[in-house]
């Protein structure tokens, strides 16, 4: 009885079906544990958390240099910027926009730097549904390889104040 003092000698090794279940459950836990390191080495999608300390001002300066050097157009007053394949790209998150618009090539790999000027923001790439956290003070680097063409929307999915639901950005893949 779960509410009364157990009888003396309650210590018993598991037996029968209970023992079998513990064995099965343990095996399953082991499988799940192995999956993560396995994917770390063999899988293509990982979050390694590569990041460097950076002040918001310094990050913005780098991003702006990047924009000036690689600007290829403009949409609604926001620059469209195309980084060199294999090169660095910068994406600034701030209340309440993503800056600039990135234009990438399918199959090329880029180092995309994410950081925030103010609060936490959430980088959520739709409709792919890939999500990463963006913090002020951290230059979060994603090594990203677009494998599909089209226009992708960055939605902010970390609460960042009253304009949070209207904080969008774009990534164009050609």
């Amino acid at each position, binding site marked *: *009885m*779960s*509410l009364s003092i*157990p009888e003396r000698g*309650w210590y*018993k090794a*598991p037996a*029968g*079906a209970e023992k079998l*279940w*513990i064995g*099965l*459950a*343990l095996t*399953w*836990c*082991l499988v799940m*544990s192995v*999956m*993560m*390191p396995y994917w*770390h080495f063999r*899988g*293509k*999608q*990982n*979050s*390694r*958390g*590569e*990041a460097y300390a950076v002040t918001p001002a310094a990050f913005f300066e780098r991003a702006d240099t990047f924009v000036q050097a690689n600007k290829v157009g403009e949409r609604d007053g926001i620059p469209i910027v195309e980084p060199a394949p294999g090169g660095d790209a910068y994406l600034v998150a701030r209340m309440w926009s993503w800056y600039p618009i990135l234009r990438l090539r399918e199959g090329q790999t880029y180092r995309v730097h994410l950081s925030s000027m103010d*609060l*936490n923001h*959430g980088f*959520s790439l*739709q*409709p*792919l*549904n*890939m*999500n*990463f*956290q963006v*913090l*002020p003070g*951290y230059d*979060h*680097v*994603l*090594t*990203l390889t677009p494998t599909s063409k089209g226009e992708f*929307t960055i*939605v902010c*999915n970390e*609460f960042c*104040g*009253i304009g*949070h*639901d*209207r904080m969008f950005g774009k990534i164009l893949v050609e």
Partner: protein
Amino acid sequence: MTSLTATIPTALDAPGAQSRHCDTTGLKVCLSSQSFIKLSAVSAVVFLLLGGIAAILLALTRWQAVHLLPVDWFYRILTFHGLNMLIFWILFFEVAILYFACTIPLNARLFSRKIAWAAFAMMLTGAVMVDVTILVGRADVLMTSYLPLLAHPAFYLGIILVAVGTLTAVFNFFATLYIAKRDRTYEGSVPLVTFGALAAAIIAVVTLLHGAIVMIPTFTYSMGWTPQPDPMWYRMIWWGLGHQSQQVNVCAMVAVWYLVGHLATGAKPVNETVCRGAFLLYILFINLASAHHLLVDPAVGASWKIWNTSYAMYLAVLASMIHGFTVPASIEMAMRDKGYVKGLFGWVTALPWRNPAFSAVVLSVVIFGFIGGITGVTLGTQQINIIAHNTLRITGHFHATVVGGTTLAFMGLAYYVIPLIFRRDFVWRGAARLQPWLFGGGILMVSLGMSFAGSLGVPRRDYDIEPSGAFGPASHLFLGIMGVGAVVAVTALLLFCFLCVGTLLFGERNSGRAMAEWGAAQRLPGVREGLLDHDHWAMKGTIALTAVFLASFAVYYFANWKALADVWPVQ
């Protein structure tokens, strides 16, 4: 036992002890702990009611076709809902469980009324401070209040008070256990329910210390006394509070499963060692701090994430899987012992389904296990988190654990707490029998609607998904399902609150007689007790159910790896 303990002043059956005799169970009830169980439980239900009103406002806003609240009130009410539900309702109810578990089953009196008063006063003051600060619009920072978002200092101070108050109550619990052991008010080991509560209390201490570590510098910063703590550090420590406290809830919930299973069917653990061992695993392997919430964060590396997600092995998950077997197995064994031996599931139809505590617990086990557990482990897998972080999948997951699981189990327990502790029989018993089904069904829809919408990328904590243009009709459909489920669930929540309040005011007193029975499983005529005690394979229905569970788990888990493999390569 009476003869042994009659001379012990801290025992409840000692002459002149502040206790009464329970006319239903025959146990002695400590009058001090009874008053604090009452106070805590009543406060808990008040916070549940507040959180429930907030819930319907939120759901009717996220249901895009209704879109009820203006934007500032949406985030305000979201902050309010998270704190009143996850922190206040749950903590006050858990304190009630602790006071129960350390006194009545151990025949021991509460260590100190003064400390209990101090704890209660701090918790209540803190909670009221937090709620007022939110409602006057000075803390639109959501429950997590991630820095550099900043709320009014009263908000942080309120949370600190709640945390310190709860710690004080937990101290009272430990002190009571200590004097009970010292004075030998009972002989042998503590009952399983107390053991589960003890596990919950130990984890609670670790959790609440994290809360203090993160909230104190945030409070001093909000006062302008100290510099701003690092935002990443804040996330890491805050989730040491936020995530580990969920393990407290799981422990308390599982203890309630065993308790109600016993009250309604006479179930006893198939193997005490296994059940206790599983609780021990929770304490030892509660995944360190906060990793589950930082899986796609910068500055914490892959090995840190992988190690802390699994603690190298998922032994806390193992613990839940063990309880997921032993709870139904113990119930099945009790039923078979009573003579319901036909086929795999012959015993199921004979279960006391009209007992609302029992149906609440069964639904709690099923929703927690099949939905909450499976989604939780999958979403908490380091890489899979990339396709789930901060989407509504997360909210869908924890509405299956902490609402469909813990909250529903606690509601079920209330169907015994009120008759036994407040000594009034429930009013509107027909409605009470229906209530768990409504709540469980509603929450199931809420959880599934959220989960599917989240799979399509719909963010959590988002006022309006329309402007982005990124979400199509399917997303709206799932948000609609969530909305309809929310109407059902909140109706059931209000019904629960009305039943409780109605009973406290108008319920018939049952002092001097046993409580009105909800319905318990009956032994078939002529069946002798204990025939199956040594058959370790008799729980055939449970074996079948857990096999289905494991298969569903594996399918869902690998389907998510497949979905992950389909997105862009990223390192």
